[in-house]
């Protein structure tokens, strides 16, 4: 299948479908609801029910646009302009999916953002065989290897407990969608009193409807910061530090794998857990698909494509594809 890469996204011309376009197009597949993937108002938007619900919360409907949202749940298939589309779990955030496109006897998989290890919230990634793979490489360097969800849960709860025992307030920085809820789940699941910032809390009902269970949590309130863990958005760190309350900040992220993240994030505790695949996971994923041809988009594209070529896979970093993206959605 011929693919066109540009700053606007990836376009599959044969079936007139855009993959995670950056502006409004005719028809778009959205791999998940982070705003660097699901944005603007394409005429037809295809995604999992959860992705579409979250997308709608962030990009409210405009009647005059007459948008059509088409749900394609995990394991389901649909016909699309002579192709068969199939939705496959991607384990990046709740609702994240890969898309398998079968057309003209060829199988193409677009991973979107993906991890291979089981996530704290949401479905585990399934690896499907294909001929042609489009994969991300946010952490495509061999220094990046991440904690399992069990290890992350332990680290998160352990740090919170230690702080609380010492009379300090543990603060976890999490992006509004994905990381934030995962941290809340890990904390409340361990029975730790947790206050959640509104920007993160507003998506919790979506998670609950999807079957994710949270223990008790309370809304974050600026005047009451003691005796509980706080899960807030990263921009609030300085504000909290300025309150005079003994706050201790943990940074849960793939970037936290490297000690200099401490300075970068202004955190004292680093927990290297990501919603993206680490280096080994990426290799495992690519090899698992048995794809003969691999396009690497996002992150260390050139480097990772080079690594795949050394392993005998025909891989490239398509010119025009978006370069190194941040792990977190830009909000």
């Amino acid at each position: 299948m011929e693919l066109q890469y540009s700053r606007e996204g990836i376009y599959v011309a044969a079936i007139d479908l855009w993959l995670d376009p950056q502006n409004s197009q005719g028809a778009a597949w959205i791999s998940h609801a982070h705003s660097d993937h699901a944005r603007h108002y394409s005429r037809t938007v295809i995604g999992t029910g959860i992705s579409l619900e979250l997308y709608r919360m962030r990009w409210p409907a405009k009647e005059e646009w007459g948008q059509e949202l088409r749900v394609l749940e995990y394991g389901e298939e649909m016909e699309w302009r002579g192709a068969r589309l199939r939705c496959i779990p991607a384990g990046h955030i709740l609702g994240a999916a890969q898309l398998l496109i079968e057309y003209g006897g060829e199988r193409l998989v677009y991973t979107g953002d993906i991890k291979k290890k089981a996530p704290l919230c949401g479905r585990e990634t399934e690896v499907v065989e294909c001929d042609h793979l489009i994969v991300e490489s946010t952490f495509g360097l061999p220094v990046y290897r991440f904690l399992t969800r069990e290890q992350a849960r332990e680290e998160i709860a352990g740090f919170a407990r230690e702080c609380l025992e010492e009379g300090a307030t543990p603060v976890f920085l999490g992006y509004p969608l994905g990381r934030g809820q995962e941290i809340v789940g890990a904390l409340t699941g361990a029975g730790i009193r947790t206050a959640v910032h509104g920007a993160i809390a507003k998506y919790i009902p979506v998670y609950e409807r999807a079957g994710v269970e949270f223990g008790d949590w309370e809304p974050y309130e600026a005047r009451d910061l003691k005796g509980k863990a706080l899960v807030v958005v990263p921009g609030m760190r300085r504000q909290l530090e300025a309150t005079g309350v003994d706050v201790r900040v943990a940074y849960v992220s793939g970037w936290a794998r490297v000690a200099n993240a401490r300075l970068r994030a202004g955190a004292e505790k680093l927990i290297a857990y990501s919603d993206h695949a680490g280096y080994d996971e990426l290799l495992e994923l690519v090899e698992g698909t048995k794809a003969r041809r691999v396009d690497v988009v996002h992150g260390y594209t050139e480097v990772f494509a080079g690594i795949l070529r050394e392993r005998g896979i025909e891989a490239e970093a398509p010119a025009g594809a978006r370069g190194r993206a941040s792990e977190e959605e830009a909000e």
Partner: protein
Amino acid sequence: MSATMDGLAGVLERVANTSSRKRKVGLLAEWMRGLGEADLVRAVRFLSGEPVAGAGDRKLSVGHAVVREAAVAVTGVSVEMFRMCHREVGDSSETVGLLREGGAAGVEVRLEEAEQAYLRLFQERRTARKVELLVGELGRMRPLAVKYFLKVITGNFRVGLQKKLVEEALAKATGRAGEEVKGASNRSGDLGLVARAARRGELAEVEAKLFHPLEFMLAKPLDEVGDVGEAGQWLVEDKYDGIRSQVHFEQGKVRIYTRGLEDTTAAFPELVEEFERVGGRGVVDGEVLAWRDERALNFTVLQQRLARKKVDAGVRESVPVVFVAYDLLYRDGELLLDRAIGERRGRLEEMGLRVSPQRRLGAVGEIEELFAAARGRGNEGLLLKREGSVYQAGKRSGDWLKVKRAYGTLDVVVTAAEQGSGRRATMLSDYTFAVRQGERFVNVGKAYSGLTDEEIRELTKVFRGIARERYGRVTVVEPRVVLEVAFDGVQKSPRHKSGYALRFPRIVRWRRDKSAEEADGIERVEELYARSLA
């Protein structure tokens, strides 16, 4: 049970993951308490970056190239890939440790085995063999142990204030007073020896040794003349604008150390000649000054000497230097730190060196006049030293007060450098700087360089070497370079992490003689701010 590198690595990882100094000390002390004497000595040596006992000035000679070569061999990545990862991580030990996780699980390695490995590396002079040895060690250790095994070699733990932390933890682990441990460490310069003595309760017997820099006693700034109290208790000297230095000498051997505890002996051959003629053994505290016609020359003149690799007759002629002595810390087997200032001064004066003139303060009102006179002589200001006081090594003590310009200067650390424009477009000429807050550095301001192009060019090179990250025109650098900045006031500001901003900061000079640890702390900024409200 004998201790392992893995145990050490585990505790250091926990130390890194907390910002509280107390907790860092507690974690380290708890681990040290469980060690036998031999392991305690080893651990402390490792932590002070001196894994081979008795190596003295001789280095392990395992440089970055050796580490990289070994890393490539052990981890199976290409040189190019290693470089890329190193750039991302910023620290070679950590990079190797992280990459090593892709390989065999590894086995536990006892501290004793690690010590033998360091010794073999030390004794081996051929680079190729060093690499081989290192490959063997890194290949069998566990990844986290690899990281810290290498950090011992590179002497770089990046947890900040490492030595003091280790001293405190050692005191806590052995139940000795912190002052006792610090004192023994300061006079002997050998933490391994101190560890053994601490465990055995023999700290008092640890003897002073020459040829390792003792910590300097520092002065507190005097902000208001009225704060001095009784005038008669103060001895007054000029405060010089040179390089604070400590000279160690013993029968023809001479070493000069700066406050950054660096050895600058080679830059000042005439001072070496002078001290070669002094009999006996001694440690003298004083100032190196560029000097002509019986007065000090500008500090920037002196810096030209420091920058030179080779000091020939021409340089000695164009920038003549002298050493002005003002304290005596050790003489012929006797450590004098605990003697009163009068006694130290008396013995110093017997040595025939150039000594800083000293007089007793008659009245508080004289300070202004004396200050003006000192400035008139081209010196920076005054130092007031309390009669009867002892030499408090490593302390900023109220027994010494410095009188500088009306509104202060601060010694700050550069945290980021920005590309200039126009003539300075290829250089990093605008600096964001910070003061210490515990073990972190918090920004207090940004200044466009008041330095010469030559200095900026040199600093640019330094910054590129310690760059952490680039954001467009801004390069975030490791906090290492110390600048002295002058300013017109301090105000509260949400703009910088410190919560304060300096008004009209300008760079006075590059303090090559100071390390980041010696930069001013946030307390000093707070103090200045409080004073501005009064």
